[in-house]
């Protein structure tokens, strides 16, 4: 009886082993399927992307998928959106981008959706996308290119490189030149001004700011400010004690399209600890659009806007009406009441800082 069992097991093992060895090489070969886009007649070139990968990309990509909102914006800014066949559910700027086919989130794009679009180039950025997504696309043989800008200047040069990749070099150069010109003009207007010490608030609970290595910190620098947080982590969680110790002159918050920035501050001002900050007592805060979180051409507009809020005295009278706020600007609490529009609020800030 044991012998019969052994014989059966032996035969089954041989059967299984032969099945496996028969099919294995085919399955292995199948996984190295040439990419759908590897039509032989397309010209390719080898490129090194911003994270150091050496990749082979089509010279003139026709079907591009973007996996980060900043990249989508950049493509539109370069005027190449006709070739954009898919983007993420978070790609909301410009509004046209919302109409493109969605392939999922930034961290978790759906590989099937991407593959179904038959892209010949997928764009990613190290700061937003996952390494696993890169690997998965490599395994599938879909060419991908990753950006990794850490400063405002790198954003601009990255935009230009991207334009080269997308085969619209002229648009790239003109956009880059324009952005650099605006920045240079801003620098000359800010000449001689003392940089304002700023706390950039990424998130309130827990309190998260940015390190000097991020492009956001660099943007602040370009806007005539300096982020007070020093950390080896990119998005450090900092303690309120540290903030009180450092006493920033301004708090900077990013506005989402729902107007969160002001509401956050109003709630903030009532909290213990925060109440003790000079910046809170004097109502010194700046709200910028959420484009500050995206390493895209719009960052220059954000920088300009922030510069005006940090150094209102250096700029000619802004286009906003100088209507005084409903409440007297003397008492600190008045400037903390939520206001309905950003421009009014900016006026209030101008007023109070003018008062000082």
């Amino acid at each position, binding site marked *: 009886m044991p012998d*019969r*069992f052994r014989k*059966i097991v032996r035969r089954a093992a041989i059967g299984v082993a032969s099945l496996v060895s028969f*099919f*294995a090489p*085919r*399955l*292995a*070969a*199948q*996984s190295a*399927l040439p*990419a*759908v886009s590897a039509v032989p007649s397309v010209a390719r070139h080898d490129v090194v992307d911003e*994270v*150091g*990968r050496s990749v082979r990309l089509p010279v003139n990509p026709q079907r591009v998928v973007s996996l980060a909102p900043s990249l989508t914006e950049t493509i539109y800014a370069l005027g190449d959106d006709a070739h954009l066949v898919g983007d993420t*559910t978070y790609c909301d700027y410009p509004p046209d981008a919302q109409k493109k086919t*969605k*392939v*999922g*989130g930034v*961290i*978790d*794009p*759906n*590989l*099937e*959706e991407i*593959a*179904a679009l*038959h892209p010949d180039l997928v764009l990613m950025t*190290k*700061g*937003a996308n*996952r*390494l*696993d997504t*890169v*690997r*998965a696309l*490599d*395994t*599938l043989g879909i060419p991908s290119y990753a950006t990794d800008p850490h400063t405002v200047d790198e954003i601009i040069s990255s935009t230009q490189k991207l334009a080269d990749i997308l085969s619209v070099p002229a648009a790239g150069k003109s956009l880059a030149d324009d952005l650099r010109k605006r920045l240079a003009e801003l620098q000359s207007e800010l000449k001689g001004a003392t940089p304002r010490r700023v706390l950039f608030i990424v998130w309130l609970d827990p309190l998260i700011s940015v390190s000097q290595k991020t492009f956001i910190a660099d943007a602040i620098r370009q806007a005539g400010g300096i982020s007070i947080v020093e950390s080896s*982590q*990119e*998005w450090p*969680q900092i303690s309120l004690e540290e903030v009180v110790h450092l006493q920033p002159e301004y708090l900077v918050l990013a506005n989402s399209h729902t107007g969160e920035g002001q509401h956050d501050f109003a709630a903030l001002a009532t909290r213990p600890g925060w109440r003790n900050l000079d910046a809170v007592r004097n109502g010194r805060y700046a709200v910028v659009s959420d484009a500050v979180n995206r390493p895209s051409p719009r960052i220059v507009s954000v920088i300009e806007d922030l510069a005006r809020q940090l150094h209102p005295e250096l700029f000619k009278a802004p286009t906003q009406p100088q209507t005084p706020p409903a409440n007297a600007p003397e008492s600190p609490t008045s400037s903390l009441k939520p206001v309905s529009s950003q421009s009014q609020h900016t006026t209030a800030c101008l007023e109070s800082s003018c008062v000082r």
Partner: protein
Amino acid sequence: MRPLTLSRLLLRCGILAAILFVVVVIALKMGAVQVSLYGLGRDLIRVLLGHSGGLSTDYGMIVVDIRLPRILLAIVVGASLSVAGASFQALLRNPLADPYVLGVSSGAAVGSIIALLIENQLSFSPAFSGFLTPFCASIGAGAAIAAVYFLGRRDGRIDSSTLLLSGIIASSFLSAIVMFLMSTLSGGNLRGYSYWLMGSFSTLPPTSLLYLLGIGFLIAAGVIYTTASDLNLLLAGEKEAMHLGVDVHRVQIVVYIAASVLTGLAVSVSGAIGYVGLLIPHAMRLIFGSDHRMLLPASALGGAIALVIADTAARTVVAPSEIQVGAVTAVIGAPFFIYLLRRGLS
């Protein structure tokens, strides 16, 4: 008197395998992108017969390169976790044991977070990076296994209650290390890591890794299976088993190592997917009884079926987004667990 015979065992396993096959076919068909069954069947046959050209481009890449490896991964992981769970339940004589109770998954978590830290320093090199996380995770798992074993010994032999306690302690400790390391990692890496922690199949494994896992499973599960009769007796208690002729110490070491290897392999590629290793053995026991000669292969097949279903749900319910598999198994598993408890854990 109806003892288990080889033919009865093969018949039942055949039925389970058939169910698995049907589930796999359905899973191949379902997904964010529509695929027709006919085209699917045609292409699969072409693939198996080795005709690489002629695959209709719509299906080829999606089915063969994306869905199929993912399904195969789910099969191997589901089978590994279930067999490991059944083995630990027998080894520790505890129906609440799951593959993670001895600290293996926490060890793997530490390993993979270290892999992330390493990757931070080096740039991606595609051939290597696909293996780095599973490799480091396996080492972490192995280190945890060894540590818990040495902690769990008493008078040089494995004592189940001490082992269980040391496993729980090791899990806690390693989880604390993971949390500490997570708070020191920068933002980008953290994203990917939290994904891994919960358990997910969304990373496409390189094919060679799949083979490695499959072979590892067959060897480790095979080794455990040779002790199936011994495990039946071990349930009665170590002393009784010894008097009935079981070499308790040898069986304990063999099963401990093999089941830990199974768990380590599974966790290193897909994170810690919960409830599968705990509940599938119980479900199979309800159907087939606690004879391990039937229970172990049934658990393997049952776990594969369950995880393929869970993964398919994870990637289709809110397509094109994905829920993580660990979340799906928790949502289905928890009510089933409650049901089992009320029934009295068979």
